[in-house]
């Protein structure tokens, strides 16, 4: 007996191979589907002449997927990285903002400790700082001041600096909503580093994602069995490609459903089914929060936003306001002479100059990884608790909202791969089963 004449219940090799083909379709569909979720991080593709004109007229649905059509290009960007900014925005609305305002985050970072750290770092730099600032403003005038007088000025600045720094951190805490926009900060950061969005899923769901790819094989195989009977009953060439569409589509649909549904655990006989990612809310919350605490809402990022963000002018004005009196006291009676010599306006500018120089110098110590890790622990804990306490549907929305608009394309891609599989089977075995 040759292989070609081998039959089971009257079905030959060509027929028996159908479930294997559909299983492979299912596997490849889910594998490429997951690839499409995460890769590539940046858009890859080419500008198509003339597309820029048609692009805006295309249906909204098509424009929304990360094919680049709306920009007159054709290519691909991973669904999740392309939605990173949106994911960040939703994460703030659903998770972070319910914790309270920017003030809460600021408090969690223990501003007192940060002030103490800044004081330790900045204090030894005071002589240099004052010297540079005054020289930059007044040049020769400062050179004529006797060394002893200079040192006494520097010492006074050093003495008053800790209190001034503490006043600055307290005032930032009081007005943090006017100085910091946590949501915009998260959105910017995620847009800048889309890999952070990928990490939320990849670090949490390594095992689940592998399982979905394998499940593609199983679903494809199971769906291929009734297809054998269908092909025997309707021996037409179009049956296989058509069934391929359905199988590819359904396999991808099942994969997405398996990740997010059911939202609440459901018992079916001896089994409890629950969305693969939703079931792991406890761990996902932990990892999601750690990414936010380590990469987004860190001391370094917050300080950078305070000093360079859209509201940084307010922070800088506040710092200048606090440091100017320090300079006043330090210069003591000399300030009257100085004011008379350079004019009141220029004298105020000197305060601003010192403030500018000291804030520029504060960024380096605030970027210290060890400090960031230590202060980040509190934010991490707060976020994790909050995300764990979300209801399952809320949590699912947090994860799914970013990709919801693109899911149809994943299904379509499954269908397209199904057609290819069906045609391939036809090419190998023909219509006869």
């Amino acid at each position, binding site marked *: 007996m040759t292989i070609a004449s081998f039959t089971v219940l009257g079905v030959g090799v060509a027929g028996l191979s159908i479930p294997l083909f559909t299983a492979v379709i299912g596997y490849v569909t889910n594998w490429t589907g997951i690839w499409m979720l995460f890769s590539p991080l940046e858009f890859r593709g080419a500008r198509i002449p003339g597309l820029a004109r048609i*692009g805006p007229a295309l249906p*909204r649905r098509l424009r929304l997927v990360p094919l680049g059509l709306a920009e007159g290009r054709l290519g691909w960007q991973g669904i999740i990285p392309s939605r990173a900014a949106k994911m960040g925005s939703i994460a703030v609305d659903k998770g972070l903002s319910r914790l309270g305002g920017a003030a809460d985050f600021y408090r969690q970072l223990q501003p007192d400790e940060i002030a103490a750290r800044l004081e330790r770092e900045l204090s030894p730099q005071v002589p240099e700082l004052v010297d540079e600032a005054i020289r930059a403003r007044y040049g020769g005038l400062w050179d004529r001041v006797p060394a002893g007088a200079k040192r006494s000025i520097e010492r006074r600045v050093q003495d008053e600096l800790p209190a001034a720094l503490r006043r600055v951190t307290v005032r930032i805490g009081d007005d943090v909503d006017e100085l910091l*926009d946590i949501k*915009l900060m998260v959105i910017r950061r995620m847009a800048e580093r889309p890999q952070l969005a990928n990490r939320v899923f990849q670090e949490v769901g390594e095992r689940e994602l592998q399982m979905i790819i394998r499940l593609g094989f199983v679903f494809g195989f199971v769906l291929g069995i009734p297809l054998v009977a269908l092909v025997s009953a309707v021996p037409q060439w179009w049956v296989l490609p058509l069934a391929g569409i359905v199988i590819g589509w359904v396999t991808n649909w099942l994969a997405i459903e398996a990740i997010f549904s059911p939202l609440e655990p459901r018992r079916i006989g001896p089994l409890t089914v629950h969305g693969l990612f939703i079931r792991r809310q406890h761990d996902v919350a932990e990892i999601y929060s750690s990414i936010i605490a380590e990469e987004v809402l860190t001391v370094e990022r917050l300080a950078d936003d305070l000093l360079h963000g859209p509201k940084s002018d307010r922070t800088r004005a506040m710092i200048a306001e606090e440091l100017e009196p320090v300079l006043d006291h330090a210069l003591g009676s000399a300030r009257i002479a100085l004011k008379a010599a350079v004019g009141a306006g220029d004298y105020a500018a000197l305060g601003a100059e010192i403030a500018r120089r000291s804030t520029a110098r504060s960024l380096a110590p605030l970027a210290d990884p060890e400090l960031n890790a230590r202060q980040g622990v509190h934010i991490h804990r707060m976020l994790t608790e909050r995300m764990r306490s979300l209801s399952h549907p809320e949590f699912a929305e947090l994860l799914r909202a970013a990709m919801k608009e693109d899911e149809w394309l994943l299904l379509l891609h499954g269908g397209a791969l199904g057609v290819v599989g069906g045609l391939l089977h036809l090419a190998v075995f023909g219509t006869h089963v």
Partner: protein
Amino acid sequence: MIAIATAPLDLAGSVARWGGRGLRRQLRALLDEPTGPERALGTGTADACTAGPAGPGGGGLGARFAALLEQSSRVARDDGAPDPVLGRLLEQLSPDGARVLRLLAEGGPQPMLDVRVREGLRGGERTVLADATMAVREAGVRTALDPAVLLDDLRRLGIATACDEPLPGDGPYEVLEAQPEVALARRVGRARLVRKRLVLTPLGRDLARAVGLAP
């Protein structure tokens, strides 16, 4: 005055300035004595002044208008003074409005959208959310401020306006469309998002240039 128009170009400026001062004096006199001999000034604007409404303030406005025309009739206005329109505009601009002006001047047009809901079978539409934008927030204005009020004010001043043409690409709208207020408005019914952009008017662009904002 006719002599000014025919004077050589290089002289025109100085003569105009001199003539301007003289004319202003004459006009002031005219205000006090509407029927005085200065009526024979021979300019249409002065006639309009005397023929103006009889109400107490009417004559004052007429004179101010005449002064404007007089100012505009000077061939060269090289006195280095800032454009009076921009100066007044700047006086009316709020501090938060200034932040939005800066954002629009330096960052270019900003995404904006309306949410419209289809009503009934006839296809009528109702706007449930108008002019949603993150530009005000991006500009870093005070949190207590209602963004719609600030935008209204900028529109009233003629500095910024909404334009129906959307920005190219999806990127700019992605985050805006995910905002809770947009999501809430979409839940009202069969919603349609209408993408627009918030732009500076030509006047707004002039103001931005005049105050030294660069794109």
